[in-house]
Every structure is written in structure tokens, then in C-alpha cells.
């Protein structure tokens, strides 16, 4: 449970709020590079941390991220003309470059020099790992880009998608680090019931998740604070003398990873506040050793796992609450626990059903919620530290993000951090 004050502190991210200030200390994924693909292409709208922005790529290929509204009469620059190294408001012709400088003001006499005095809010943008990242914080505190493995592999070794979720970012992260929900929400009916047929099917599977995940529905959690955030270790019984361990990271301010098994691709998320009631869910799948296989592309195309098909303009998933996520009650009876296709839509359906900002004073947590408790407590500590002028360490140390999730079977006597040491170091 959280108090009202703590819940508010964590979930409000507009400019001037403590969590808003905290998120503004990091580079945040803002757009796919493909949203502004070429010089002088059409500008696009973007909402981030409650701020309405316009992104555009100028004639020289530089990306600008500026306030959506022209400082003159507050008209939207979405209608603007992207021309000759600037975005021109089509209402009265004021033109702004990627730094926010007003470079032309044709409706004012030039002798007034008014254009030299006018600026529009502009934020730094960087292209990295197929994404345009934005920094909305103070100029003197510009952080390092996080050295995340998925951002550094070759393009054919990764796939990135973005979707809009109608909840606050925090309950989306909570879903990302809550290992115990996958035994239920993402299970097939036969796996949930652990039928003899299911056991026969998975008993020799090389996929550890399929083999062990559902045999122990009450996993034990261990958390460890690190320079980048948290490592969350989840232990399930495997064989008589072994445990099946799944290790995932929570990387500040809002990145997570799904436990990785060597030879398969790795999946991760970044959950970015769009405003207090919606968030951007960035999903990354990458193979550190080889191009994504046909099987991996098939899972992406068919939305069976973590990616979802979206409207290309709004990034709202096609399976959404207006169509009940296309739930199929027949499939729910016989095949899957939810009857909803794909892990992404299953997560989104349940998280959105909690309301845009869940009232955490009314929840009933247990010890299986340890990872969620740890993540909240860490974010609260970090936000309060910044209120005391203590800058976040991870924001200025991009190297600490060079880690990887893991899953493995270890002898019961071997501590997880010892057994996982080699597996959790990123390799690219």
C-alpha cells in the first residue's frame, strides 16, 4: 500500500512536480526515427510528461523538439510548413529552428528586431538505437545516454515498437516487474491446470520457462539495489536439487527487461509518462548474437508475445478497451486464460481496467509483490533525494545500463548472483 501523498508523489509528472523533475533528469525515448524519416518531412505531434510538443527534421537532418504552440497567438505548429531549416507557423509566418530561435518574423517591421528577442521552448534530441530521445531537463544537468544493449546491436538484430497505454506509467512498470502474474494472465488453460498432457509436452523442453514456470505458482522474490536500479530475482522450484531462477532488472527511471534465456531473443520495455493518465510503452526485442530469426519475426507479426499492432498515427493498439481487446470467450473457455490475443494486449487490458491512476491506498499486497514494493520505494527515495538537490547517479553514468536479464537453473546451494554473474553482463 502507499499513502495518498506517496501515490501522488510517484504518479504526477508534469513540469514542476517532484517526479516530473526526476524524469526530466534522464534522456527519454520520444519518437521512432521513422516518425520523422527525412529532411523537411511533415512535423508530428508528441505529448511527453504532460507537455505538448512538435517534432520535425530540418533541411540538414537535425531533429527539433519544440513547444506545439506558436508564442505569437498560440496556434498549433502541427500545421506548420517544414522548410529551409525551420518550421514556419502558417498563421502569421513566424519561423523557428531546431534550437527554438525565431529566425523569421515576416509580419513585423524588420527594424523592430522583434525576431531576435523571441524564442520557443525547445528541447535537445538525440538519435540512438532507432529512437529519438528527448531531454526535458535543465541545461546544466544534461545526462548521458544509457548504454543499453538493445540500442547498440545492429538494426537487423532488433525490433522496436511503441504503443499508447491509457494508464499512468507506474502501474505499467508494476506489470512489467510482477513475475507472478504471468502464471495466470499469460497462461494457456492446460498450462494453468498443469494437466498430464501439458507436463508430457514440456518435460524435455529446452525452453526453461515452459518447463518450470507453471510448476511452482508461488515464486520467492529477492531484490538487490544496484547503481542502475534493482535486480529482481525470482526463484521457483525446479528439480529436487535445483531452483529455476529468473532475473530481471528495473533500470532507472523506467526501463525493465524480461528474463532472457541464452539462444533466444531478449525483450524489454521502457514506460514513459505521456501525461498523468497515459503512458508510452516502448517494447524492444533483440538478439545479441544474430539477426532476428524468421520465428522471432513471426511472433512479432502475429502479435503473440510482447508487440502489438497499433494505429500508425496515434499508436493506440488496435485491440483496445473500446472493442474489449477483441476478447474471444470461446478461446477463454478452452485455450487461454484471458481469451485475449497476445501478451501485450493481455497486459494492457488488465492494467487499463485498474483505472488511469490506481488508488494504491486500497490495494491488498502480499509478499509476492516484493518487486513492486521495491521499485516504488526506490523511486520514492530517488525523487526525494532530488528534492534535496542530490542528482540521480544513473542519469550521469550511462555505463551502468550495460546489463542483461537472465534465467537459469542452479543448484539449490548456489546464490543467484554468483550463478548469474556471466549471464547478466551485456556482450555487444
Amino acid at each position: 500500500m502507499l499513502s495518498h501523498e506517496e501515490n501522488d508523489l510517484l504518479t504526477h509528472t508534469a513540469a514542476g512536480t517532484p517526479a516530473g523533475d526526476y524524469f526530466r533528469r534522464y534522456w527519454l525515448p520520444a519518437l521512432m526515427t521513422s516518425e520523422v524519416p527525412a529532411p523537411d518531412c511533415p512535423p508530428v505531434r508528441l505529448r511527453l510528461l504532460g507537455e505538448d510538443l512538435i517534432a520535425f527534421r530540418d533541411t540538414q537532418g537535425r531533429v527539433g523538439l519544440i513547444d506545439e504552440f506558436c508564442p505569437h497567438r498560440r496556434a498549433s505548429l502541427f500545421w506548420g510548413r517544414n522548410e529551409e531549416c525551420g518550421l514556419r507557423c502558417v498563421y502569421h509566418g513566424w519561423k523557428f529552428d531546431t534550437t527554438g530561435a525565431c529566425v523569421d518574423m515576416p509580419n513585423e517591421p524588420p527594424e523592430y528586431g522583434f525576431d531576435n528577442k523571441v524564442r520557443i521552448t525547445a528541447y535537445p534530441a538525440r538519435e540512438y538505437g532507432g529512437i529519438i530521445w528527448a531531454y526535458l531537463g535543465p541545461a546544466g544537468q544534461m545526462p548521458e545516454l544509457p548504454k543499453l544493449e538493445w540500442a547498440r546491436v545492429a538494426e537487423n538484430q532488433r525490433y522496436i515498437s511503441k504503443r499508447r497505454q491509457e494508464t499512468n506509467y507506474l502501474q505499467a512498470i508494476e506489470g512489467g516487474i510482477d513475475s507472478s502474474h504471468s502464471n495466470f494472465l499469460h497462461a494457456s488453460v492446460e498450462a494453468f491446470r498443469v494437466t498430464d498432457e501439458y507436463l508430457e509436452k514440456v518435460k524435455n523442453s529446452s525452453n526453461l520457462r515452459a518447463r518450470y514456470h507453471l510448476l511452482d505458482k508461488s515464486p520467492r522474490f529477492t531484490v538487490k539495489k544496484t547503481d542502475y536500479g534493482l535486480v529482481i530475482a525470482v526463484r521457483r522450484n525446479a528439480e529436487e536439487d535445483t531452483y529455476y531462477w529468473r532475473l530481471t532488472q528495473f533500470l532507472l527511471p523506467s526501463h525493465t527487461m524480461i528474463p532472457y534465456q541464452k539462444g533466444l531473443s531478449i525483450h524489454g520495455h521502457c514506460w514513459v509518462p505521456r501525461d498523468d493518465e497515459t503512458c508510452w510503452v516502448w517494447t524492444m526485442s533483440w538478439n545479441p548474437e544474430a539477426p532476428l530469426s524468421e520465428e522471432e519475426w513471426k511472433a512479432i507479426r502475429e502479435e503473440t508475445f510482447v508487440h502489438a499492432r497499433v494505429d500508425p498515427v496515434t499508436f493506440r493498439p488496435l485491440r483496445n478497451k473500446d472493442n474489449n481487446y477483441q476478447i474471444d470467450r470461446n478461446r477463454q473457455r478452452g485455450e487461454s486464460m484471458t481469451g485475449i490475443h497476445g501478451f501485450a494486449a493481455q497486459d494492457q487490458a488488465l492494467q487499463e481496467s485498474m483505472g488511469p491512476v490506481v488508488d494504491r491506498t486500497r490495494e491488498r499486497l502480499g509478499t509476492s509483490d516484493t518487486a513492486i514494493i521495491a521499485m516504488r520505494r526506490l523511486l520514492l527515495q530517488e525523487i526525494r533525494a532530488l528534492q534535496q538537490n542530490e542528482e540521480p547517479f544513473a542519469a550521469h553514468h550511462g555505463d551502468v545500463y550495460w546489463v542483461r536479464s537472465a534465467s537459469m537453473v542452479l543448484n539449490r546451494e548456489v546464490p543467484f548472483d554468483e550463478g548469474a554473474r556471466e549471464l547478466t553482463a551485456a556482450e555487444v
Partner: protein
Amino acid sequence: MNPAHIVTVRDFSPVTLGAIAAHLEVSTDFEHMVYREAELDAIWSITAFALAQKPDDAVARLHETAHRAHDLVGEGRPRDAAALLRKVTPAI
């Protein structure tokens, strides 16, 4: 007493509450506080379920105490939380 272990909370018996209090008394690190918070959350949850079935003054007191103790852990005061919990334990 190892504060890095999570107490299994199946009930709110004196044995369970005593174990949580004992762990609170030796907790020092971030991770320990998280585990204690999880245990107190669990006590708060199961006492709420019990109260919904049957009102009981002693259980209601424990429910409130778990809430206060939980907040004290959040403030980094596990020993004060332990003392609070021990105060209500004999009543259950």
C-alpha cells in the same frame, strides 16, 4: 535472525507477528526494509480480509498497527515499527 529472508505470512498469529518484529529489529538495508514492508503489507491485507468476514476489535487494532508500522518502515524506522507490533501481539 536473517533480515534478508522474507517471513512467510500465512496468518496473523503471535508466531508470525513475533517473527516479523524480530526481523524488523535487525533490519538495516534497503532490501531489508522492502521485505519488511512486504510482510506488513501482507498482514494489513489478511487482517482486512478477516475484518470483512467478521468484525473484531483486536484484529482491527492489528490492522491499524500494521498500517502504522508499514509507514514507519517507509520512514526508515524499523525498530519503532517492531515496538509497535510487539505492543499489539499479545492481544491476538
